[in-house]
């Protein structure tokens, strides 16, 4: 029995498939691929599959980690090939490795978003990101009740970089990720929309990789 870490890319239309649905899809994929997974021993046994960090609906992923517990001898390379043979289009196992870091070490994520110049200029975006006054609303739970909290976004932007061409603006941004606090680029753009007083949306947004607290790559 050993654990492997699968690095998934989730592209195109699959960005509209939710975290919960991804889990079910993965359960079926490992069955089709006939990967010998370890099953939990409870009343209702299920295979051990763990998505380390949820990816928001609408955001694509390039290297999303999923842990699988394997019984038997199958090698990481074979697991990768078998999964890629049965995945739907848009989902790919980019690599299968042995886990190096603990899931709790995930602290940040690098995102890349494409914006249309018809909606916002590079100066406006830079001004907003440097304003210190970005806010968005997040729904959460407090004492079992649903509450909507206003969150200051500016203090959470770890780093960003803006480039542009004739039609588009390209934003690379590092935002907090992990089990305690998450901010995704769609929420960031929501905060920018509130700041500017008009809607700004992303043509596409992708999570490039996960980082540890010291900004080294999570592996």
């Amino acid at each position, binding site marked *: 029995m050993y654990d492997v870490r699968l690095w998934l890319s989730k592209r*195109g*239309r*699959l960005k*509209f*498939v*939710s975290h*919960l*649905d991804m889990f*079910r*899809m993965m*359960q*079926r*994929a*490992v*069955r*089709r691929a006939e990967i010998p997974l370890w*099953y939990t021993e409870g009343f*209702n*046994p299920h295979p051990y599959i763990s998505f380390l960090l949820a990816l928001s*609906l*609408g955001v694509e992923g390039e290297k999303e980690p999923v842990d699988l517990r394997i019984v038997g001898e199958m090698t990481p390379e074979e697991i990768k090939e078998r999964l890629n043979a*049965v995945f*739907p*289009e*848009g989902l790919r196992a980019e690599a299968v490795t042995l886990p190096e870091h603990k899931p709790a070490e995930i602290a940040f994520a690098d995102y890349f978003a494409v914006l249309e110049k018809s909606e916002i200029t590079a100066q406006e975006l830079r001004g907003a990101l440097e304003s210190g006054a970005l806010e968005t609303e997040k729904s959460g739970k407090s004492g079992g009740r649903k509450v909507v909290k206003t969150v200051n976004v500016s203090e959470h932007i770890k780093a960003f970089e803006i480039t542009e061409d004739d039609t588009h603006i390209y934003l690379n941004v590092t935002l907090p990720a992990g089990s305690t606090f998450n901010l995704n680029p*769609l929420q960031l753009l929501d905060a920018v929309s509130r700041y500017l007083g008009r809607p700004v*949306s992303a*043509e596409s947004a992708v999570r490039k990789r996960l980082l540890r607290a010291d900004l080294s790559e999570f592996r």
Partner: protein
Amino acid sequence: MDKKLEKLLPLVQKPARYIGGELNSVVKDKNAVDVRYAFCFPDSYEIGMSHLGMKILYAVANAREDTWCERVFAPWPDMEDVMRQNGIPLYALESGDPIKDFDILGFTLQYELCFTNVLNMLDLAGLPLRAADRKGLSPIVMGGGPCVCNAEPIAPFFDLFSIGEGEELNSEIIDLYKKHKALGSDKETFLREAAQIPGVYVPSLYDISYNGDGTVAAITPKDGAPATVTKRIVKDLDAVPYPDTFVVPFIDVVHDRVTHEIFRGCIRGCRFCQACFLNRPIREKKPETINEQCKTLCKNTGYDEISLCSLSSSDYTRIEDLLSLLLDWTPEQKINVALPSLRVDNFSEALLNKLKSVRRSGLTFAPEAGTQRMRDVINKNVTEEEMIETANIAFAGGYSAVKLYFMLGLPTETDEDVEGIGLLAKKVVDAYYTNPDKPKGRGVTVSVSCASFVPKPFTPFQWEPQATAEALGHKQQYLKEHLPSKKISVSFHDIKVSALEAVFARGDRRLADVLELAWKRGCKFDGWGEFFKYDVWMECFDEIGLSPAFYANRARSYDEILPWDHLNYGIPKSYLIKESEKARRAETTQNCREKCAGCGANRLLGGKCDV
């Protein structure tokens, strides 16, 4: 994926309903096929993707090299708003192409309350609603499924209906269409020839005239259309193609598992049950065929559950053989086998033990009526003793929750029959507490669910009036007031929904105007409580000048011409009259295996039934 759509999908709930690209969905080169076929399910993605018939016909059509069959569902109202605001026409999931440009649109009509959704989908596609207003050969709009046994209320919107089972018939229709497309024929020429295919009903080739009292005076075929259209059946279920793979949805749908049909038809002959009379004669599939096909399906989908489906699973003659074959390999692969639609009178301990080795869920039985007299009237041949005996087997086997299904408003029903529902449920409660082998430390819950009886075409009750809303309201109240135990919970179907269902089930072609007006006034998803607009419907009946009570609550005489009399589902009217008379005398009819009652369906097989 379309850029415009990609930008809009974040605005709607469950966007994965609208993206296509699911595992095993079929993508072909559109330039390499002759016929583009849209299989349209007029309800939500989650309902439509649960439907076995669609999976079968999708596989059959896509097995043809010359045809590309795609799926289309009714967009949820939030998505419909987004589509209309942004000028996105209804598209097929596989290609994303507008279905307006397809060759054939095939709607499956599973329940009457989806009719407004059909109209809405045609409109969203950008097509005129009425067949007469759609000039040109394509798209041909066709319908199938149980509701086409009386498709009259929706007939003016369709070019043709396929009556009975579609595995072979659909291909014959596609062949003929392909020929006429190559010839450049007009729609009328195609339809006149299509009407000659056994099982094809072309409504525009039948003139309907009415008497002064609103009943049908005559149904007159023209242009060589047959006087009677007889339904098609597949003779050998082992030989007919069954899909070796299912499209596996991204999102959770209602039935998200391998479903396998073990037989068609039913030996029972319950007099209220349209499914029984529409699907005779009985034809079984071999356990070996089913087992192999289940293996393949599990392998190709990754599902971990198999559901064996039919109208009455325990009537499958080789059920124990089949379970043995399946249980040979499924536990090792951690696959569950579920067996819905069991009857109370032949649910054996051996069967229960086999089922116990797979995951246990609740137990559901359908006594349908509370007293023996009432059950005799409807020919539901189960006795109270059998029920209690079965409940005891189940309780000893560890079950402590039982669901019981009943109907209210059955012909000849009295308050005593209604009270009998509560009394029967109480006996199940008592059986639990007196059972020495019941699960330790748990109480029993008996949930009673009551539907309102809706008389349906091609059943012995097709002449019966539906109980009025007032009468049904009284019955529900009476039952609630006469529940003998707190362990029994009771729930009811919405009376107004059943009333509308009754109107359309036995309606005639004039109702098309009501349907169209109700759609214009915003009626859609009528089967969904949150969208059902009863008052709007009543306004529409009023404005068109038709009475819902005429269709729902009127007793017909045996010699009245019924709107569906030109269709033949294999069982002659004379047999239905005989059964109707027996019901009035509370006489039962034995099931097909005990004694052939001579329903006539065997003629469809050319002689002998497969009992």
